[in-house]
């Protein structure tokens, strides 16, 4: 009896040991990659799906995705993690963080991995590639790119006498449409949040610069120039939408505007292309889309790439870095890009997807998803004299997120405190210059 017990026990122990050993061998072989992202809600579910696909596709690398909150939160978490030495391996970080990320200690530029791996970066849409490139090549891996577009309620616009809206339209035309729309008795013409992004985009569309040194692209930005030339005209237009009763004053919001558009209280909404899916599902009327407007005194230039990219952080261990790179490459593959685009509205960042059959069929059914791609595709990237159009390349500066916030404040300075657009922008520019000077002093421009 007892001997049998011991024999059984021995067999059991042996079995356990084998299991333990094999699992520890497996544990040695798998590499865990920490991946931080800023995609909440439905977007986050799609990120999780992509991560799950990656983890299932092989058994050497496990990607552990963590939602860090908004873009700003993710940006701050990354800066804080530097001091506590808890950097992730891959992080999503937004467009405005580009310069800060370029200067970020411990960043492993994507072009180094591309060179090592023989990865062809020309698969990416040029505007996306350019936005995240330094002199050598792409510093970050393109992931979720978006631009703002104008969504409109087809029924209301038809009632106002517009069967469609022009793709190329200036501020006066925009307000003409608005006057006709308001005449139908609707509460407001357009709804848009007082965020810095629309100012940046409409400024670019009007050919205006945000920073000196060619938007901070031929040298470090040392001065904000958005308070000169086009900037004033653009900001006058944007603030007049509120002060002249064209838009409800919802403050600085990315999401509250959806409610008044979906409820049929506003005929148009300015929003990211990433909102395409959500708006279409929420509204019980047909939504059509068009490009954002530009100033009266300019021709249409086009838009700056928005959204975010994936950045690789040096773990100090080559195997881990390579594993993280594998994941980044996986995300850029066509299958993942198609899933990402059709689920969210962020557009595919690869050029070879333009004639993809699956997407072609999808775009037939969902033409609004195509508007942003075409808006970007028709952007003037080179001026008549052959020089790059720095306006649509977008501004690049350290701590740009803090400077964007100054524009948010400037809206209130005009609406509440009665400053003119010029005065509010001058005030913002003065503070922006201080931020730039401080940044360049710390980082050592």
């Amino acid at each position: 009896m007892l001997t049998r017990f011991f024999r059984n026990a021995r067999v059991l122990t042996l079995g356990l040991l084998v299991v333990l050993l094999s699992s520890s061998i497996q544990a040695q072989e798998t590499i865990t990659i920490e991946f931080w992202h800023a995609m909440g809600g439905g977007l986050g579910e799609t990120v999780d799906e992509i991560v799950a696909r990656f983890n299932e596709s092989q058994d050497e690398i496990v990607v552990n995705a963590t939602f860090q909150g908004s873009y700003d939160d993710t940006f701050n978490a990354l800066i804080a993690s530097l001091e506590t030495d808890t950097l992730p391996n891959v992080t999503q970080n937004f467009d405005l963080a580009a310069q800060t990320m370029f200067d970020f200690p411990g960043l492993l530029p994507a072009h180094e991995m591309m060179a090592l791996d023989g990865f062809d970066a020309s698969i990416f849409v040029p505007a996306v590639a350019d936005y995240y490139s330094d002199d050598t090549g792409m510093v970050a891996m393109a992931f979720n790119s978006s631009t703002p577009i104008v969504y409109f309620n087809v029924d209301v616009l038809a009632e106002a006498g517009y069967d469609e809206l022009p793709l190329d339209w200036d501020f006066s035309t925009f307000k003409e449409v608005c006057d006709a729309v308001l005449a139908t008795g609707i509460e407001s013409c357009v709804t848009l949040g007082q965020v810095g992004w629309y100012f940046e985009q409409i400024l670019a569309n009007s050919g205006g610069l945000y920073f000196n040194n060619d938007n901070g692209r031929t040298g470090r930005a040392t001065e904000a120039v958005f308070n000169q030339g086009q900037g004033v005209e653009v900001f006058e237009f944007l603030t007049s939408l509120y002060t002249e009763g064209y838009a409800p004053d919802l403050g600085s919001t990315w999401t509250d505007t959806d409610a008044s558009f979906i409820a049929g209280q506003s005929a148009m909404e300015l929003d990211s292309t990433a909102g395409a899916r959500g708006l279409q599902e929420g509204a019980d009327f047909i939504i059509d889309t068009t490009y954002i407007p530009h100033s009266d005194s300019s021709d249409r230039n086009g838009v700056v790439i928005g959204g975010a990219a994936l950045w690789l952080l040096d773990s100090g261990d080559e195997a881990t870095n390579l594993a993280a790179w594998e994941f980044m490459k996986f995300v850029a593959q066509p299958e993942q890009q198609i899933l990402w685009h059709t689920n969210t509205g962020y557009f595919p960042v690869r050029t070879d997807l333009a004639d993809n059959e699956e997407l072609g069929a999808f775009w037939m059914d969902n033409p609004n998803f195509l508007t942003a791609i075409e808006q970007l595709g028709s952007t003037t990237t080179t001026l008549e004299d052959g020089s790059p159009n720095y306006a649509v390349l977008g501004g690049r500066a350290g701590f740009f997120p803090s400077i964007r916030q100054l524009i948010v404040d400037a809206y209130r300075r005009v609406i509440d405190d009665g400053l003119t657009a010029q005065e509010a922008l001058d005030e913002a520019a003065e503070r922006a210059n201080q931020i730039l000077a401080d940044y360049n002093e710390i980082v050592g421009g």
Partner: protein
Amino acid sequence: MDQSTSNPPPTPTVGLTNKTKRESEADRQRKNKLSAAIEGYLYLAPTLIALTIFVFIPVVQSFQLSLTRSSFGRSIDVGFDNYVRLFNDDRYHDVIWTTLKFTMGTVPIGIALAVVLAIALSYPLKHLSWFYRLLIFVPIVISTAVTGVLFKWIYHPTVGYLNHLLGFFGIDGPTWLTQGDWPLVSIIIAVVWRQIGFNTIIALAGIQNIDGTLYEAAKVDGANLWHRIRHITLPLLSPTLFFLLIINVIGSLQVFGEIDILTNGSISTRTMLYSIYFEAFRSQNNGGASAQAFILFLLIVGLSFMQFVVVGKKVHYQ
């Protein structure tokens, strides 16, 4: 067995014996005192250690940080430049003004409402007191994030409940969360609502502690309800009111959730506390944020001190 019995047999000299005896007694007393002191400090130790780690050291560190400009783990010594900048910054002056308006809005209204409710619960509504108490106290158990989001829907200018309701009375409601002074008013309402439960419970406890015989005596003397409230309840409630005043002022200086959720910290609702967060996490300016934190710290210390000295004198303790 105590020390005196274990002593060696007494020597013939009486005076010496007395002296040793006295000495040993003094020794014992001192020892007792010492061990009592050690015991006392031991009881205090967990709190002191925790306070040192989580309060005192961070205060010193944030002061050090306020003398620098830093980011990315790099830092430059700038002396008192961050303080000089704040001193000259119009926007920081606005922040202080906003904080003042906000505190003057929340504290008196919050306490006055609580006292009225507590008196109502003690007298006219006594029968269903438990029900009303529950009703008033409920906001306290809901997290700030949830109440913030709730109020956001209530205040929404186009699809919100409040303006819808006002519309029934033919009133065209303001855009609560954006224009002029309305955002601050909206936040004050939300904060008063959240704190009213706590304030009422404390005030109610204060009222219930008042000796019932005083009221009976007053009744016999012919005092009506108002007189009893005016001459018995309020004076005897003053220690409670004093406590509420301190707690509420400090609490209002620490409000964050409602501001962040309702207005996203728009410029007219940026209080001193929010401004610290704003500088540090939206403007990546750690030095400036630390300087603001230190100013707020001094202010709270000063306020607590002032409240104890000035108001403390006028509080009526039974």
